[in-house]
Structures are given as structure tokens and as C-alpha cells.
């Protein structure tokens, strides 16, 4: 076990090191600038994310087979490259969507950027974790930053409530995960995921592994927000400032996919016969709870939170087969979901004004008369979430359904289609409200002063059409990552 420190390991974690170094630099720079110059922090953070993304991309070609660093603590392979790219992209998008919203509420502090950057770092470590301990630490780095982000609006009682709920349930989920990990460590005597898989045949007490597996699945379900462990999700999405909801509703979902993949397939792959069934039950519960309860919501943020639960159910469809093709479909699905969710949450942040949150569905009444362009973008996002062809969300749904049918879970695919059709109702209700209801006020929509925000959300919305029409390259990339 005693392997001396290998300097080549530092090259393997170069993107993470650069991100960390730049974050520390931003931490110091932010102390010396005036609140009116916060744009410096903003653009520095965006530049940091872009640079990290470039470094991940540059390191990618030679990683086609995957390398390990730090005694197998970190694992760089095609999967981690794809996941990291989209984590960095959606984190950057949420920073764009956050600036205007937070500034209007005097919440635009440097810590917002620092916490997002630290959370991004945690997610990057999480998706390339090769050991139980790196999985846990990456997850905690992400979670701790997220709790603080949710609590950022200190004068809002609902923010505080959301943060406390998030913190307590998040700690409970971490406890469940750790308990499961301790059982697996007890059974195999190793923290290394590859070693755990390798030792599977010669485990003295297979019962411990199964015991640990149940706790791991519960912990993962808590973190991804799958029913019946979804209680925290609507309250947190609703209570957090919308700008923060954009962030915690997007990039961490991609990281949660990485968490589930690394632990279940990477560590407990030989037990897939047992966990696929657990995930199938979670998927059905999430689809049912998410889609049915979303219908009853009048608050758009809560509705989108319940829709997240149902999308997590869809993502889990890709896992039930336990095959690389299925994981690839699941990864494509979660990328498609986060790209769409950033537009939907970002639009709420864009339309909100000081003293007007624009988070009720009724607030979108007659948006088409007031601003046809933003109504169209929001409409695209809603159609994509509903899975209407030819948008991004449609092909993602098609691919996970195909993966579930290929895995022999035809009943699950039928259940998913039924609930997807139920789900179309509440997405289309938003479209109906925007296009066919009369606006409360007839004046044209006051546009946000932030030009970058307007451009970024437009490009993000149009990307949903482009990626829907040309989904092949992205899906090929996902397939290549899993070696399909």
C-alpha cells in the first residue's frame, strides 16, 4: 500500500488545481474591491470556469482508456471528462443568471462566487472519485457550499427554513451513505472502488455488502432527490433565492449521476442484480410522485422541483439495465435535463424584479404580449421538459426508454410513458398561461439591464432546439465515454 508520492499525479489533477488556485486568488481579490466593482469577481469566476473547462478538454484525448492518480483515489476517464465539462458549463450559466437577480436584492457578495466555485470543485472531485473516501469528501464539499448558498438571503424566513431542512436532511443522507460505506469497508477491507469490485468473489460476509448496499442506495436517492426521499427538494427549491435555485437545480444533478454511477457500477457492479431492482422501484415512485404532485402546484419553482423528481425517475430508467448503453442514455438524459432546467429557472430569475419574485405560474400570464421573445424561450424549455419532438428533451426520453426496454423492463417503460403524458399537462399549462391568458399589466416587459444575461439565456434556449435537431454528436460522445 505504501506508494511514494508521484509528481505525475499533479498533472492528472491539473484542472482541479487550477480551479482551486484561481478560487483562492478570487477570494483574496474580492476582499480588496468595492461592492460596486463586483463585476470583476463575476468575470474572473467565469474566466476561471472557462480555463478549467479548457484544461479538462486538453487533458481528455490521452485519457481515452482512463488513468488513476493518488493511489486510485482519483479516476480520470471519458465519463469524468464529459461530466466535468457539463458541470463547468452549467455552473457558469447559473453565475450569469444569478448576477442581476442577486444585485437587485443587494445579495451580490463575493462569497456567492466563491461558494459556487468550491461547489464546482467538489463536483469535479466527486465525478472522478475512485475511492469511497473521495466520493464522500467531494460530496461534502458540494453539500456544504450548497447549504450556505441556500441560506444566503438571511432576511428571508423561507430561505432560512429551506436551508435548515436542506442541512438536516443532507446530513442524514450523508450519514446513511457513510454507514453503507463502513459496511462495505468492513466486508472488503478496502476503500478503493476497483478493489471492492475485484474482491467481490472472495468476501467472507456477503451479507454485509448487501446491508451496505441498501444504505448506499438510500443515501444516493436522498442526494439525487428520488422519491420517497424527495421531501427536501420542493421546499429547498422554493425557499432558496431563485438565482441559487438555478445553480442547485442544475450542476449538482450531473454530479449526482456521477455519484450513483461511481458507487453502484464502479464499486458494487457485481451486485447489480440487486440494486437494479431497488432503482426500478425508486424510478416508479419518483415518476408517480413527481408528475402527480406537480399538477397541484401553483408556484412555478415548486412545480419545477416536482418535475425534477420525475426527471430523476427518468434518469434512473437508464440504470435499471446495468449496461454501459443504459448508463450512456442516463448521462445523456441528465445533461439534457440540466440544460433545460437552467433555462426554466433562469427565466424566473430574469423576469423577477426587486420586490416581485415572478415565481407564481400566474405571474407568467400574458407574457407573450409583453415579451414575445422570452415567452418563446420559456415555451421551448417547457416543451423540452415535457419531451415534445424535435427538442432536446424528447430524444433524451426516447433513449432512456429504449435502454429500459432493452434491459427487459418493458412494464417500467410503459409506466414511464404514462406518467410522461400526465406530465405534459402541467408543462403545457405554463405555455397556455403565457400565450392565451391576459396579462395583469399591459405594458411591455422592462428588460434587465444585464445584456450578458439576455444573450446567454437566449443562446441556452436556442441550444435546446439545436441539440434536439443534432443530438447525434453529443450522444456519440456519451457512448464513447462508456465504450459503447
Amino acid at each position, binding site marked *: 500500500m505504501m506508494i511514494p508520492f508521484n509528481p505525475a499525479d499533479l498533472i492528472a489533477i491539473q484542472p482541479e488545481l487550477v480551479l482551486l488556485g484561481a478560487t483562492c486568488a478570487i477570494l483574496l481579490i474580492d476582499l480588496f474591491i468595492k461592492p460596486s466593482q463586483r463585476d470583476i469577481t463575476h468575470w474572473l469566476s467565469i474566466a476561471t470556469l472557462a480555463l478549467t473547462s479548457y484544461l479538462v478538454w486538453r487533458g481528455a484525448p490521452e485519457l481515452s482508456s482512463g488513468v488513476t492518480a493518488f493511489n486510485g483515489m482519483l479516476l480520470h476517464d471519458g465519463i469524468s471528462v464529459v461530466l466535468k465539462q457539463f458541470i463547468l458549463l452549467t455552473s457558469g450559466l447559473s453565475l450569469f443568471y444569478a448576477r442581476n437577480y442577486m444585485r437587485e436584492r443587494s445579495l451580490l457578495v463575493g462569497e456567492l462566487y466563491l461558494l459556487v466555485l468550491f461547489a464546482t470543485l467538489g463536483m469535479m472531485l466527486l465525478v472522478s472519485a475512485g475511492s469511497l473516501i473521495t466520493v464522500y469528501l467531494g460530496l461534502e*464539499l458540494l453539500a456544504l457550499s450548497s447549504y450556505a448558498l441556500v441560506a444566503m438571503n438571511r432576511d428571508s424566513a423561507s430561505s432560512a427554513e429551506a436551508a435548515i431542512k436542506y442541512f438536516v436532511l443532507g446530513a442524514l443522507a450523508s450519514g446513511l451513505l457513510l454507514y453503507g460505506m463502513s459496511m462495505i469497508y468492513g466486508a472488503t477491507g478496502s476503500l478503493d472502488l476497483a478493489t471492492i469490485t475485484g474482491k467481490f468473489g472472495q468476501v467472507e460476509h456477503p451479507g454485509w455488502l448487501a446491508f451496505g448496499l441498501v444504505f448506499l442506495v438510500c443515501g444516493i436517492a436522498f442526494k439525487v432527490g428520488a422519491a420517497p426521499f424527495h421531501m427536501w427538494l420542493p421546499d429547498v427549491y422554493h425557499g432558496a433565492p431563485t438565482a441559487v435555485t438555478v445553480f442547485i437545480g442544475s450542476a449538482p444533478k450531473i454530479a449526482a449521476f456521477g455519484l450513483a454511477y461511481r458507487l453502484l457500477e464502479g464499486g458494487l457492479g457485481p451486485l447489480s442484480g440487486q440494486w437494479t431492482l431497488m432503482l426500478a422501484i425508486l424510478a416508479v415512485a419518483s415518476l408517480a410522485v413527481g408528475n402527480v404532485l406537480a399538477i397541484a402546484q401553483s408556484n412555478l419553482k415548486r412545480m419545477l422541483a416536482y418535475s425534477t423528481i420525475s426527471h430523476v425517475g427518468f434518469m434512473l430508467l437508464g440504470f435499471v439495465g446495468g449496461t454501459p448503453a443504459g448508463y450512456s442514455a442516463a448521462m445523456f438524459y441528465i445533461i439534457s435535463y440540466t440544460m433545460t432546467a437552467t433555462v426554466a429557472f433562469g427565466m424566473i430569475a430574469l423576469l423577477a424584479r426587486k420586490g416581485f419574485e415572478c415565481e407564481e405560474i400566474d405571474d407568467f400570464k400574458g407574457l407573450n404580449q409583453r415579451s414575445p421573445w422570452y415567452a418563446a424561450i420559456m415555451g421551448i424549455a417547457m416543451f423540452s421538459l415535457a419531451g415534445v419532438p424535435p427538442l432536446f428533451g424528447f430524444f433524451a426520453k426516447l433513449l432512456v426508454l429504449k435502454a429500459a426496454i432493452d434491459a427487459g423492463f418493458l412494464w417500467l417503460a410503459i409506466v414511464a410513458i404514462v406518467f410522461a403524458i400526465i406530465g405534459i399537462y402541467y408543462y403545457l399549462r405554463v405555455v397556455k398561461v403565457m400565450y392565451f391568458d391576459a396579462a395583469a399589466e399591459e405594458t411591455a416587459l422592462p428588460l434587465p439591464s444585464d445584456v450578458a444575461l439576455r444573450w446567454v439565456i437566449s443562446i441556452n434556449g436556442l441550444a435546446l432546439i439545436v441539440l434536439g435537431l443534432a443530438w447525434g454528436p453529443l450522444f456519440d460522445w456519451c457512448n464513447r465515454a462508456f465504450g459503447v
Partner: protein
Amino acid sequence: MTFELICFWVFASVAALAALTVISVKNPVVAALSLVLTFFSMACVWLLAQAEFLAVALVLVYVGAVMVLFLFVVMMLDVDFSVVREGFVRFLPVGVLVAAVMLTEMLMMIGVRSLKTPVTEDPAVLAGMSNMEWLGQTLFRDFLLPFEIAALILTVGLIAAVTLTLRKRTGTKVQRPGLQVMVKREDRLRVIKMDAVGKGEVGP
């Protein structure tokens, strides 16, 4: 019965009794002190298991720092613990039942027999070095990366704490030593001329 086994039974039973005291006494200060005794006895048990570093760390960190802070809090906050403890006896049967069910489940799952032998051999003994040396090697070489990530988590905790608590309210009372030092006599003391009080105004 060897000397080590006798020591183990003594320390283990002291730890168990002290733990029981923590949850059963009325006085919160006594409870906190009993917790210190529990930690101390456990440190002794760990010493017997040749985990010297963990034992020392437990005494230094928990007994020395955390529990002292906790005692301060208990003494300063003046919480009415009789309210907190209300229903202790009433819910005791339920608590005992849950505890018994969980204990049975764990014993069935893990198996009492497997408890007799440790899962793995002591790696420090296998490597032929002292516990402390082995721990250092493991922590700072094999687990270097997790150790650094843990440091990052602490940094985030610090940033989060500052973000959530530091605020400039109007009317808060703060000391500014710089201004205090620069203060002049004229800022604080005003000499005013007054007419002397006349004799006639003094009472008869």
C-alpha cells in the same frame, strides 16, 4: 486473566457507567463532566488496543477543547434542562424497544461469532512500525488527497460561517482602537465657564 484484560474490563465498565450517567443525571454540568469521564475511559481502552495517537487526540481535542467549550455553553446558557428531559421515563419503553430491535438486527446481520476476530490484522504491526509512524505515513502519503480535500471543506465552512453571520447593522456597538487612540482631550472634555453660585442662593 491477564493484566491487560483486567484493565480493559475496568475502563470499559467505567466508560459504560459514565455514559449512562450522562443521560440520567439531572444536573447538566454533572452530565458534561460524565461525558469527559466517558471520553477519558475510552481513550484508555484505545491505548490498550495500541491506538496511541487516537487516544491522545481524543484527550487533547475532545476532553481538552470541545468539552471545555461545551461546559462553558452549558454554564452560560442557563437552559432549563428539566423541560428538555420531560418525558424521559414516559418514552423509555419505546426507546428501549427500538434500541433492542436495532441491536438484534445488527447482531443477526453481522453475526456474534465474527466479532471475536478482528476483520483485518493491525496494519501497523504488519508494517513493523509504531502506530504513530504508520498513521503519519498513511495520512500524509497514501491519503494525501483526501486530507487536502478535508482542509478545503473546513475552508468552505469558514467562508460559509462568515457569509451567514457577518453583517453591518446600524446601531451595533463596536470598538475601533484606531479612533480610540487618536482621540484628543477636546473631544471628550469641555471646560465651560460658569458664574460662581451666589451666597444668597444657599439655603438658610
